[in-house]
């Protein structure tokens, strides 16, 4: 009676020894995420290195958790951070507050803020959870320059790029 039950259980155990394991060796091995996965934010740059973020604070307005703080300042051609007149002098996201809803992405008129695929978010103190602009910005692309940069007068007057109609 019991022996049969035990044998059946042991058979299951024996069988699984030859199966491919479902677990992975994190952190040596990382599971790929879906393309639309919403991980930690990054602030994008244009190919020439200019920041896409124009400091409009629409992300902060859209954020249901009040996680984003933006303070803007004025750009000029000698010290240009982003196209147009305005750039974010302070950009902070408190990732302890963030609920990764992606509303900030939707609100962004320049596609500057993007929830990328990094989900490894752990901190030793609360202050580290506040991502400042330098931590959020992506590295300068190979053919670009670092900001602030000097540009020819009037070359980057328009804050919001022309975008394709999604329809």
């Amino acid at each position: 009676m019991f022996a049969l039950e035990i044998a059946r259980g042991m058979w299951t155990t024996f069988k699984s020894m030859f199966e491919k394991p479902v677990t992975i060796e994190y952190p040596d091995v990382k599971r790929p995420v879906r393309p639309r996965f919403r991980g930690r934010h990054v602030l994008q740059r244009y190919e020439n290195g200019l920041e896409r973020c124009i400091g409009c604070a629409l992300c902060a307005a859209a954020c249901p958790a009040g996680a984003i703080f933006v303070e803007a300042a004025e750009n000029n051609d000698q010290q240009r951070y982003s196209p147009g007149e305005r750039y974010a002098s302070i950009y902070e996201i408190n990732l302890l507050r963030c609920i990764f809803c992606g509303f900030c992405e939707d609100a962004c008129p320049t596609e500057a803020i993007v929830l990328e695929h990094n989900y490894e978010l752990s901190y030793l103190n609360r202050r580290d959870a506040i991502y400042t602009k330098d931590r959020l910005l992506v590295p300068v692309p190979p053919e670009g320059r670092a900001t602030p940069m000097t540009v020819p007068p009037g070359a980057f007057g328009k804050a919001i790029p022309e975008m394709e109609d999604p329809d």
Partner: protein
Amino acid sequence: MSEALVSLTIDGVEVTVPAGTLIVDAAKKIGIEIPVFCYHPKLKPVGMCRMCLVEIGRPKIDRATRAVVRDENGDAVIEFGPKLETACTTPVGEGWVVLVNSERAIKERQQVVEFLLTSHPLDCPVCDKGGECPLQNLTMKHGPGESRFLYEDKMRLDKHVPLGELIFLDRERCIQCSRCIRFQTEIVDDPVIAFSERGRKLEIVTYSEPGFNSYFSGNTTDICPVGALTTADFRFSARSWELSEAASICSHCAVGCNITLHSRREARSKGAEVIKRVIPRHNDTVNEIWICDKGRFAHHYASSEDRLSQPLIKRKGKLVKTSWEEALKRVVDGLKAADGSILGIAGGRTSNEDLFLMRHLMEGLGGQAVQHGDMAGGDLVQQVGVGAETNLARLGAGDCILVVASDLHEEAPIWWLRIKQAVERGAQLIVANARTTRLDAYASHTLRYTYGEAAHTMLGLLHAVNGDGALAKFASDETREASETFAKAPNALLFYGHEGMDYEGSHALAQACASLLSATGHVARPNNGLVAVWPRCNSQGAWDMGLAPHPQGLEEALKGTKAVYVMAADPAGDDPALASMLAEIEFLVVQELFLTETAKAADVVLPAQSFAEREGTYTNGMRRVQRFYPAIAPLGETRPDWQILAAIGEAMGLEPARPSAAAVLLEIASENGDYAGLDYAALAHAESQWPPVGGKDLYFGGTANPNQQGVGVQLPSGVERGEAFEIEWSTPARVSSKRGIMMIPITKLYDRGTTIEPSQVLSSRLVSLCLHINPEDAKRLKISDGGEVDVTWNGGEQRLRTVIEEEVPRGVVLVPRSLGVPLAAPVAVKIRSVGS
């Protein structure tokens, strides 16, 4: 007043309005909103933007009989015009039918929006007006959603055009409604900006040097229906929805403009909440929807880094930081040791609650409290001040306004503006001053006297009214004519200042003015009475609370005093003679925002809160009590003035503790008959005002706030409450120039006072310290324009640069106040050209 009424139908709703009302306003009255851009209820209509197009049908008139044609039912036949008409320029007509939301009108307005946006950049995300922009709102509501114009054909124009240091223009965003130009021309008569070129090249330019040189320039950014005009102060510093707002009262002059403080956390200030901008708050009896640029930009002192944040105590000759407990203990010990020989000196910048408790504390200790200042007449303003319900906007044809010894454009710009507007409505203006001021241009009578004879001139006017023989020596043809105009006016207001006089002179002037008003019967009624142009926002409140300047001056008051308690005043900084006296005082307490000269000499310095961090009430020059609310978190360990005084009173066993500023006002109301019945709830009472301007209002929108936090309460004058007033007069000793040339301190709007200097944005507009001198005197003294001179007077000496000006009267030199020359009243000076 009986006005002809006209009835018409707007979108099926019948409305009856006075003849001459514009269709937009009539529609607004019944809640039908006609979108506008160029129209503003405070400006004359021009019909430039075409946004208010409506269909107008008029009753058909039979040409032969001039009678209205009627159909078989007896109804008037309505004929619609072939084209739409602008509702903002068309006054209503009897029996008209206006269609606002007909299919045709809606479609045509959509096309107007499409046209307005042909070259608008639509950069709302980076625009400072975004979120509170009439163009944004009206485009969402009335726009077509899509444009047929080619995107590539949009014009690219300059986005950073400074019109002077204070206002910036974005040429792309401008929709050329001309509200700013019309405001500058029609309302403030500073036509320093204008359109240049025509058609697609049209742009706004400034013609003045420095650019956009007007004391009211900030208001154009409020009424701009797009983000074309922005202030240097607020540019890019916050989005409108991020700001928290608090109602407040401007603390810079006696007008008491209603303002709203917008604040937000700022990284630069280590996360502290700071005032981001000041915008006007609608109060038709005080400032309508305007404020001057000083009120708008000189708010930075509240969040200045130089503010005192902790109590200081003197140890071994040095001021060191300490705790409140220790500081208050030292104050209590020091005041006790003085044994009643105590003098309280308070400035007119503090609230009624502070001043009331100051007097209580000083009197409780057996001392006395005085106001720091040298202008007299607050008691007379209490008696014959303006009647309740006074509103400068109601003075018009036939009424008279007299301004004496004050340069209102510099001292109280909003009063200047409203008096000018009264003149344009037909009021007579009499200006009496020793020199030319900007108000002279609007005056029907200009009375010129030599410095020191302001009171004599007023007595000359009084002579023409009561025929008192003793006054005959002051009369002249000019005073007779002016007096006639003043006496026969149904309503008359009298504004007096204290330019070129000491306390005694200003007392004589106030007496003469009060007597003139009383003799002509211009008292105890609305729109009649005496107004003092005080140098501080709450000087009148100080008088009402029982704090008058010492008649013989502070030097006299300080003699033999053991302990002095100074609140929001800097006597040592104002006068070196007082500084040396205060240095000798046994025990000096200073309650201040900044470490002033007086504070440096103090034994204990107590850090107070600015008007933006606390609540309280101010009484303005027209005796309107107005309430202000806290806008930002208190700095460091600072406390409100009233709280500090109450704590000291309690520690000395004199007074009970006060729980709140509101409780102090209740005490004031129970003790002071004029303030009877006042409480914070009454002061917070606000009714909707017509026209609804600014704020959430979509159609007359702009960045001014509607008033929901209280319009204040105007106190009745003593005579109005049945007190007797006796005509008295005295003549002050004439300011003589026998001992040399007289130096007269004059007031300029942007000086280097402690509340103005921390505002960096105004730094380029601050007046420079110069000695203004008449060309003839300059020639006599061999002084060249721009040359340096040594000026010496009893108790002072200074090297100054000179400016030769035709406007300066002969025999005197003028020097602006609060720029470093420690001068309160005129003095005889010796001038020696450097190098001669």
